[in-house]
């Protein structure tokens, strides 16, 4: 089934089109949800609610821009709503001049490595890092969605990157190749 057939079918509430949309987009969107939520169960709940909203509001998709991007935005919003309900997204106040150890960053990261690294960041850093670096949102949008200033969003991103870089280097992160060698 092509993307336009899926969209047309979902607009007519055709169950096989809805299933096709789920089959096509759920793996990517589940990856997005896992980045924002700490547990797989929470990520699945967010995914289900996000995809339900996407299917329910599919008539609002104008056809301009990527369909996957439109779904991703809905799923990210759902994840942020979930985080807000569960715990307040707080911004960290930290010294800008935090020392970052020198060293190289590996090229490859395994899925679990990404999740483990994100897990080590405080919730504010992790959310902004996810939104900006991995979901391609602008600081203006992040500020609007999280109810913070653009400058706070920028500063949080700088600190999140520094913290992530420090984590990678400090732990002498071996990457996938290193792990394989050790095994």
């Amino acid at each position, binding site marked *: 089934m092509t993307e336009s057939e899926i969209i047309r079918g979902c607009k007519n509430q055709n169950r096989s089109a809805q299933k096709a949309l789920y089959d096509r987009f759920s793996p990517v969107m589940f990856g997005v949800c896992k980045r924002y939520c700490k547990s797989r169960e929470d990520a699945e709940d967010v995914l289900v609610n996000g995809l339900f909203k996407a299917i329910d509001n599919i008539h609002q998709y104008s056809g301009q821009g990527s369909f996957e991007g439109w779904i991703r935005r809905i799923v990210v919003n759902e994840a942020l709503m979930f985080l807000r309900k569960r715990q307040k997204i707080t911004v960290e106040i930290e010294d800008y001049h935090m020392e970052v150890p020198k060293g190289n960053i590996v090229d490859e990261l395994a899925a679990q490595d990404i999740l483990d690294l994100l897990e080590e960041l405080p919730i504010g850093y992790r959310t902004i890092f996810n939104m900006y*670096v991995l979901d391609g949102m602008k600081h203006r949008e992040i500020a609007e969605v999280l109810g913070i200033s653009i400058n706070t969003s920028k500063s949080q991103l700088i600190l999140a990157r520094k913290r*992530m870089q420090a984590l990678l280097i400090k732990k002498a992160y071996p990457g996938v190749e290193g792990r394989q060698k050790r095994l």
Partner: protein
Amino acid sequence: MNNQDKLSAVFKKNQHKLNERPSLKAWNKLERKLDQKSSRPKRAPFSIYSILAMAAAVVGLIFFVTTMVNVTKDRAYQKAVVIREATSTEERFRTQQILAEQAFREKYQTKLYRTVEEGAADKLLMVNKPVRVFLVPRRG
């Protein structure tokens, strides 16, 4: 490429590794939600009765608000009025004048008689309708 850019690039490059098919339970949950939505009765379009009911409610609300505003105004007026005895001669004279005016109004105006104002000296008073004209004493 500095380390900051490299960091972003590494995450972007590897994020697809997180893609994974969710459990079967996820589709079952979603399907259940979709079923519930489709079995929910659709809201009927507005009927004439609902429009009339809404109009009646609006009129009722306006009546209630107006009444409440008047009651509040009356209460405020009553609170603002202070009743005391007339003390000076001037006050007593004025009080009598007011009472006389009130008595005059009660006697003549409530019977729907209208007083005829004096016009200019060079004009004639004409009555163009077959009405009875009563002479009443001058006010004051």
